């Protein structure tokens, strides 16, 4: 009976080919690929490897990587139009002995029983154990931290409290210069390196230093390795094409893939297919040299558009075929996953890798460049609807309505994608950290929400995550954590556990020696103590990051990344040496709203209303509100909170954010790059929450913290427009690593043309007001069931129907059942 007032934005159904590949991927169990560490071991034992031990560390590294590239077994899967296997299995995690993969050994005896099971034979498990244990000392964390005086920092990795240093596992998180990959090929870098090596001179006429010579050699070695890998794939495609059973149509496709791999990524791509194939091959190279997180493609709609239009004009391609090729490309991104033990999974749940594609936006002058391909990439994702890739849509005043409508239509599919970025606020923040306007406007999203000017930035964009509310706990207790109390916690998996909050930092002082609570006589004293603790925590974290950077520079440079990041080739410097044009280390805070709301609660309770002294409040918090349940409930339910458009609460959140941003931006990394703050938390708000005592905003000890820029759990009482108003009111100019702001809707609430138009208006209004990032999760029945089982984990789900609207958690279980039913069956 529905007929809509807005014209339907239609999204295509998957083609038969795409449906087949998708079904195959969904039927495939996850596994671990040991090909990479075994090839690295083989290289070390080979004659070349033995000889390389005497060489410069960078050329040694380049030789090792090239050995992996050229010796890995090529696999071409059925139906796919973009070829190139990410691992030796259909879906698997690559293993990085240099990085953090060893954490998986914690689960070695129950790999099949994990929430995300891993399938390995008994023999493979032995090999995994051997590779894992053998690699610990040589890993980046091992080299940097298994040294006298640094052991406690190594152990922090297992009991992350104040911060979680992701950079121990790798840097990755990059958008390299795919524009050059596609339109000029790796040949450009190879030729440049050859010129430097032949002449022995830098362009200015100075002779090459040993490091520069090693760098240019590493370029040539690495490019040769990638060419070998592409050639091996071409040979495999040709072999399959020649097999007698192969149908003629598939034979032609395989021949096209083989021809593409014989040409790209070394030579410039001539066709749309070659362009995408080139990107994919380079992406494999990046995955194999660093680790899998956040390696992103950048603005593919812009990069590929010239090839697309030429193919269309010359009749080689139709929009439908282009969409199918893009969908095949999207499905390739599902072949990989991260390797997290269940313990680490608390911090980074969801098996996400976040291979970002950025769509829409402006050119260097600020004019809209959304094109047909921007829409086709959305269409392609609508066909696959998978956990990867991550899709990001840039929104500015000139964004065409059809495009925003289509992007919101994809949101309505319920996969939480795409997320939306406000060009205004993002570009301002990037200019603030020194980017030229043209480069800032060419930003692309790295991974989930982080940003870089594509092909010009080395941003360790997920270097570490920081527990902001813990700093308040330390500030209230003279730098010590609150005493351990047993608490019942619920993990992201919904499992309840009764446990303590961990012992570390209770015997000795964990934070700075700020005055005890009785000496904090004014609210300003409390804020100052909090700021001191934040600074102290960030200082400690930056120290560890500095040690890691040193190890990266020597033992684990990344030549593939360096070839494709502006500045490196020009200076003869690897990105890990500071070669990139823009260099950042980015730190994200979890629990921002909890910290802000807690400051306001302290101000009101202790200083304005004087209902308790600060000492009394602190002892109530230490006891996790035992005997003060009514106070806890009052703090949680009746105090003003960030996320309701309440100016004082929003101001407190700004104070907490400033404390963090000031502490972070005061640092420089050892490459000379700036530290920049961001506000997102992966699922660290769970992991950190388990280590954090009771907070003055009424949050009990051990429970989840607030996430990104979202309000604290259950604190947003006035709906999504108030949340966005609060978020947009914050000054984000210093937040060059962006933030994540999640909105959740029951799918019925925002369905159809009206829902689409409303969401589009909501986002536009938010960005007009200075918003930076927002994503809307349209929840399916399964998520609602999860919310019913554990209400505290899923606050703020708004359920709406005509003339009625309420928060899901407020409803009677039977009514919740009905809503779940309604969502599951789509009747309404």
């Amino acid at each position, binding site marked *: *009976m*529905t*007929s*809509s*007032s807005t014209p339907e934005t239609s999204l295509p159904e998957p083609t038969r080919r795409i449906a087949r590949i998708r079904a195959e991927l969904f039927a495939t169990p996850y596994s671990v690929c040991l090909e990479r560490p075994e090839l690295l071991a083989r290289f070390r034992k080979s004659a070349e490897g033995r000889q390389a031990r005497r060489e410069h560390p960078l050329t040694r590294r380049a030789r090792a990587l090239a050995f992996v590239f050229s010796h890995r077994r090529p696999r071409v899967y059925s139906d796919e139009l973009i070829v190139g296997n990410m691992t030796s299995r259909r879906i698997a995690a690559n293993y990085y002995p240099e990085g953090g993969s060893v954490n998986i050994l914690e689960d070695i005896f129950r790999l099949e029983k994990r929430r995300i099971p891993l399938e390995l034979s008994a023999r493979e498990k032995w090999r995994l154990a051997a590779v894992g244990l053998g690699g610990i000392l040589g890993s980046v964390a091992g080299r940097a931290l298994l040294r006298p005086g640094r052991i406690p920092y190594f152990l922090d990795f297992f009991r992350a409290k104040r911060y979680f240093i992701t950079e121990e596992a790798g840097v990755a998180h990059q958008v390299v210069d795919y524009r050059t990959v596609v339109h000029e090929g790796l040949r450009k870098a190879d030729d440049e390196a050859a010129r430097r090596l032949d002449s022995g001179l830098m362009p200015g006429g100075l002779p090459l230093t040993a490091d520069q010579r090693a760098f240019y050699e590493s370029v040539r070695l690495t490019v040769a390795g990638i060419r070998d890998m592409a050639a091996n794939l071409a040979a495999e495609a040709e072999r399959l094409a020649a097999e007698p059973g192969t149908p003629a149509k598939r034979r032609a496709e395989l021949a096209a893939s083989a021809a593409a791999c014989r040409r790209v990524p070394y030579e410039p791509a001539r066709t749309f297919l070659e362009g995408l194939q080139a990107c994919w091959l380079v992406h494999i190279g990046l995955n194999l040299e660093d680790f899998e997180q956040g390696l992103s493609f950048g603005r593919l709609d812009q990069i590929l558009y010239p090839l697309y239009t030429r193919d269309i004009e010359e009749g080689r391609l139709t929009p439908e075929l282009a969409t199918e090729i893009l969908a095949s490309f999207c499905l390739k991104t599902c072949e990989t996953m991260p390797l997290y033990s269940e313990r680490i999974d608390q911090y980074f749940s969801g098996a996400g890798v976040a291979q970002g594609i950025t769509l829409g936006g402006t050119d260097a002058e600020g004019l809209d460049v959304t094109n047909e391909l921007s829409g086709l990439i959305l269409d392609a994702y609508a066909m696959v609807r998978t956990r990867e890739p991550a899709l990001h849509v840039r929104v500015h005043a000139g964004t065409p309505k059809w495009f925003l409508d289509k992007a919101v239509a994809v949101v309505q599919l319920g996969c939480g994608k795409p997320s939306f970025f406000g060009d205004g606020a993002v570009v301002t923040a990037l200019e603030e950290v020194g980017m030229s306007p043209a480069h800032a406007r060419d930003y692309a999203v790295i991974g989930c929400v982080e940003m870089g000017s594509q092909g010009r930035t080395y941003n360790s964009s997920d270097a570490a995550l920081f527990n902001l509310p813990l700093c308040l706990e330390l500030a209230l207790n003279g730098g010590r954590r609150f005493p351990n109390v047993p608490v019942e916690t619920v993990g992201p998996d919904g499992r309840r556990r009764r446990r303590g909050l961990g012992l570390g930092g209770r015997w000795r002082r964990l934070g700075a020696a700020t005055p005890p609570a009785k000496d904090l006589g004014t609210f300003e004293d409390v804020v100052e103590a909090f700021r001191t603790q934040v600074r102290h925590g960030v200082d400690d974290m930056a120290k560890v990051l500095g040690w890691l950077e040193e190890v990266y520079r020597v033992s684990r440079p990344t030549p593939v990344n360096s070839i494709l990041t502006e500045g490196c080739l020009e200076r003869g410097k690897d990105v890990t040496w500071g070669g990139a044009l823009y260099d950042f280390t980015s730190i994200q805070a979890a629990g921002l709203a909890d910290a802000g709301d807690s400051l306001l609660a302290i101000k009101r309770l202790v200083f304005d209303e004087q209902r308790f002294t600060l000492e009394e409040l602190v002892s109530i918090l230490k006891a996790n509100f035992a005997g003060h*349940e*009514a*106070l806890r*409930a*009052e703090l*949680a*339910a*009746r105090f003003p909170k960030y996320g309701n*458009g309440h100016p004082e609460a929003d101001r407190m959140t700004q104070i907490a954010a400033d404390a963090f941003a000031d502490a972070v931006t005061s640092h420089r990394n050892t490459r000379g790059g700036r530290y920049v703050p961001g506000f997102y938390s992966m699922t660290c708000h769970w992991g950190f929450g388990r280590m954090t005592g009771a907070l003055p905003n009424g949050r009990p000890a051990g429970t989840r913290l607030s996430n990104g820029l979202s309000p604290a759990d259950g604190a947003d009482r*006035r*709906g*999504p*427009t*108030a949340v966005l*108003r609060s978020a947009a009111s914050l000054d984000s100019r210093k937040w060059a690593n962006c933030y994540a702001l999640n909105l959740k809707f029951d799918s019925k*609430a*925002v369905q*159809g*043309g*009206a*829902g689409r*138009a*409303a969401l589009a*208006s*909501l986002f*536009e*209004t938010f960005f*007009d*007001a200075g918003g930076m990032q927002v994503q809307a999760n349209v929840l399916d029945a399964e998520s609602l069931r999860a919310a019913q089982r554990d209400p505290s984990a899923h606050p703020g789900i*708004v*359920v*709406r*129907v*005509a*003339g*009625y*609207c*309420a928060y899901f958690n*407020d*409803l*009677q279980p*039977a*009514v919740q059942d*009905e*809503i779940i039913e*309604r969502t599951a069956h789509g*009747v*309404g």
Partner: protein
Amino acid sequence: MASAEPRPGRRRDEAKVFSIQHFCLHDGPGVRSLIFFKGCPLRCSWCQNPESWDTGPELAFKARLCIGCGTCRLVCSHGAIRVPAHPWRDPSRCRGCFTCAEKCPTGALSRFGEPVTVDGLVEEVRPEFPLYRSSGGGVTLSGGEPTLQPEFAAALAGRLRSYGVSVAVETCGLFDMDGSGAVRDLLNNVDLVLFDVKVYDEESFGRLCGGGGTGAGKAASRIRDNLMALADGLGSRRGPRVWPRLPLIPGMTDGRENLAAWAGFLRKAGFGGLTIVPYHALGESKRVWLGLDRGPALAAPAAEDVEAAAGIFRSVGIRVFSPGEEAWEAGTRAG
């Protein structure tokens, strides 16, 4: 309790509102804020907002939130609260002071019905103006029954429209158009009237929707007359757009006879579009909070029932829509 509270006079500067909700998509075009007025002349047995019935403020108890702290018992100076025993409140002792709700730390005890002023409401919705503009939305006065507080509603609508905000009113249709003229004022001051059409037959209407006290037994025909008058443009050329909405309640409004009678009437009145709002049981939670008897056990209508009902209207040339999906230009424009 409520009986002890003095009934609000028809003051132009103050009204009782039990909820304000933003980002609503199903009660008029675009993104809207809904202002729920307290007080309704009807008692439809399926009502999803039973907290709207009484004109005075009411105390609600959300048992799930109660931690049994006993604060309410401590602060109640009339000894009306026995915790944690149920029923939690002795209505004979309660004086309706709401101290318990003010002091309840968890919000388990809460008050439905806050006095509001026009200025206060305008400030409450003002931050939403940009979203109204970009989405073509506005404010919808809902309830309860906004026409029970017509002077206030008209003043509010006038102020909002002076800011360029489009205003809709949702009504059950049972109002006195000619009495003080205030209702007519209100209706002339809005852009859209969402007019409920429920039960056609007079006898069934009385049984299912009540409406006693405002001329029992004549309610159904009064509503039809009002709708017809609105369709005729209130004698004014600048009258609001009128849009009928039919709640489809199994066993109550979904009978063939009822639907056919409405279809004929709406066609005669010249309506080109209708929204069918399928029943849902969300109001059940609120009945429990208010300590009311449970509503009738009803299942939401199946998609094919909704389709069958829609067919009856389509057969006389009326287009049928889901809430939030209306093509507003399909309705009649009075005048």
